[in-house]
């Protein structure tokens, strides 16, 4: 399978008369884009903004991030979701780099939504604080979940994915500034030079713990709660086969942008043929019942062993209950003779004194740790808020609260906030970007 990504580096975004990309400037016809979004009659209110690094902008409640792209063969970006079923991972896609479409609730948030700051002390907590963002702020008529703490955010998230497709079209007939090629053939008979290197799989555990449909990550549009682990080509992940869900405390989330750009896959690709023989991805999931967790771990270990993997990188999209899937899978792989490096975040409490993962095992001897979900964060007011900041304290965001005897409410009258890292949008970057680690004090 060979995926060519043609890159267009976005240096600035402006609103103008015509959707276009020229000399690093992405121009968007706002009314045209909004009209496109309003084609979904569930959208009741919509506005577009631009948020660039250094802007005095805070966004809340942020629901999803997507990289604008364009497939040259006309296929939709997310087969089985925004377009008909079709294979992902082969062919040519063009991407607007250093740029994302963010979806923000105009009013209402939930457990799974988060915060992004574009400048100041809060900027460093998310990857998106450093991107040029096209921000869709919208509301919907999804009355059934308006006051639910857990929201599917279906209309808003789909609007984001479609907007990313819509904007991506502007580079269809242009020549990319540079290209990345991801090519990986069959897993066997790769030749002695490659096969003498230790073989490695990347095991992903995307979030799929909601029993009701509509909240979980999707693979080719399929809810991953109804899924047992299988082998995937890494290019499928990079090319839109995975779509992020709407369930987990958001610092643990892998957005669709994260899947499209999965840095761990790119890092393993970079080592392929040099230090490792990168076999591919074992796509697993996260489960609710112990039996389900054990079943997935058993599948992963068997597949890794059957593929002849010497090593595995294992990453979970979640913390708390999913730690049981993570540790269970880690141990199953080690027991099968596969050497594992785990990537995760921790929950050590505001005081840092709690057990870092819900379950532990001495076999988990190699872990890259990306942050503490319950770290307390206090940030000054921000000049501009996109969305509704009160959602942080009102709507049950995982890192916010209505009131607290010692700390007061998460959102203060002057617009300053106090919150747990839990609500930093994709903040722990377990997908691979995390510049954070955990240290003993």
């Amino acid at each position: 399978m060979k995926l060519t990504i043609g890159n267009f580096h976005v240096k600035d975004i402006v609103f103008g008369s015509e959707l276009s990309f020229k000399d690093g400037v992405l121009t968007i016809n706002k009314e045209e884009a909004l009209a496109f979004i309003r084609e979904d009659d569930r959208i009741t209110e919509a506005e577009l903004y631009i948020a660039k690094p250094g802007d005095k902008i805070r966004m809340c409640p942020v629901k999803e991030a997507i990289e604008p792209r364009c497939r040259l063969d006309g296929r939709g970006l997310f087969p089985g979701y925004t377009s008909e079923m079709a294979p992902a991972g082969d062919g040519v896609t063009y991407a607007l780099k250093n740029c994302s479409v963010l979806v923000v609730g105009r009013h209402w948030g939930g457990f799974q939504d988060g915060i992004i700051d574009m400048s100041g002390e809060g900027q460093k907590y998310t990857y998106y604080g450093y991107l040029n963002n096209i921000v869709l702020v919208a509301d919907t008529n999804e009355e059934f979940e308006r006051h639910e703490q857990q929201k599917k955010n279906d209309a808003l998230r789909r609007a984001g994915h479609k907007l990313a497709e819509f904007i991506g079209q502007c580079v269809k007939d242009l020549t990319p500034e540079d290209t990345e090629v991801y090519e990986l053939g069959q897993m066997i008979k790769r030749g002695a030079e490659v096969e003498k290197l230790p073989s490695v799989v990347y095991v992903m555990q995307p979030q799929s713990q909601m029993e009701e449909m509509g909240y979980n990550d999707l693979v080719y549009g399929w809810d991953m709660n109804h899924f047992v682990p299988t082998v995937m080509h890494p290019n499928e992940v990079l090319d839109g086969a995975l779509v992020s869900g709407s369930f987990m405390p958001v610092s643990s989330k892998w957005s669709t942008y994260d899947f499209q750009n999965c840095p761990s896959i790119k890092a393993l690709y970079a080592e392929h043929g040099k230090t490792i023989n990168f076999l591919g991805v074992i796509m697993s999931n996260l489960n609710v019942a112990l039996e389900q967790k054990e079943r997935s771990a058993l599948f992963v270990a068997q597949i890794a062993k059957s593929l002849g993997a010497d090593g595995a990188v294992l990453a979970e999209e979640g913390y708390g209950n999913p730690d049981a899937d993570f540790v269970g899978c880690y141990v199953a792989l080690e027991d099968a003779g596969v050497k594992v490096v785990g990537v995760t975040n921790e929950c050590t409490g505001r005081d840092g004194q709690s057990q870092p993962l819900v379950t532990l095992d001495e076999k988990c001897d190699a872990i890259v740790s990306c942050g503490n979900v319950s770290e307390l964060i206090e940030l000054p007011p921000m000049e501009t808020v996109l969305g509704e900041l009160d959602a942080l304290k009102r709507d049950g965001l995982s890192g916010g609260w209505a009131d607290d005897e010692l700390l007061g409410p998460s959102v203060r009258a002057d617009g300053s906030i106090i919150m747990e890292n839990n609500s930093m949008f994709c903040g722990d970057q377990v997908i691979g970007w995390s510049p954070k680690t955990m240290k003993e004090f």
Partner: protein
Amino acid sequence: MKKAIVYVNQFFGQIGGEEKAGAAPEIHEGQIGPAMQFAKELEDTEVTHTIICGDNYMGSNTDEAVQTILGMLEGKEMDIFLAGPAFQAGRYTVACGTICKAVKEKFGVPVVTSMNEETPGVDMFKKEMYILKGGNIASKMRQDVKAMANVANKLLKGEPVGDAETEGYFARGIRHQVWLEDGTPATVRMIDMLLKKLNGEPFKTELPMPKLDRVPIAPAIKDLPHAKIALLNTGGIVPVDNPDHIQSASATRWGRYNIADTEALKGGEYKTIHAGFDPAAADANPNVITPVDALKVLQKEGVFGSLHDYFYTTVGTGTTEAEARRMAKEIIPYLKEDGVDGVIMVST
């Protein structure tokens, strides 16, 4: 100018060696022994007093020694209290830990000490204070005092103290997130660790597996028909107005609700405020998490003796182990007072 007071044993206090180990505490104005070097290393801080106590005296008459020293410190200006460095002298390390803990509790000032890792004082006190990793012999005095002063200066200036590895103190069981100075992303650390592990080279995990805190399973209740049973849950079942304001995640609160005259919990009167699962089933019928209905029937059938008048609730999702332990300690006295023999702990 800030003020510091230093504690040393009989040897470093220049009273004498082993023959003077039984010496009772004494306090001197100014600096004796290591206190003189602290005076040089501490920034903008005066070492006003040196306290000297024999190691055997502190070991055999601990309460008296501590009370005497606390009495000596009463009314003295003090911004920081330093003890040692104690090197590999076992009794001295315990003495430093003991007096630092007492001074910190009584006067609320920061305390710093230093010990060699092979000594008993480390495990006894490392969670309570900054203990610098010290040398094994007194010739390390200069560098051990310097390391203590380095941390002490930050505490005196109100600057953040760095992580255990950087500053050289024994980890206190506290883990926080930090930004790596060079910004090395997780992928680079991951590949580095992977290659080392695959190639059989030493590697360093970022999450050392802590010693597991396992709770032994209690012995079975022998006489269930006469036992009193209580019902507890982390599934967030509360009266609909959530009177104790228990949080939906990362809970720090709990509540107890009287069910003495309740045959079954009704939807509409009780609900779950837990944010980690689909609440529909529990809201419709709270007994699926807190089975008051079934327990009342079993009680009538004589399966167990009696049901404690209250059920207890908190939320488990995201709730830290430390908070859970604290809440349990708050709940247990109620159960003991009522003579509860066993509890049913419902998780979700």
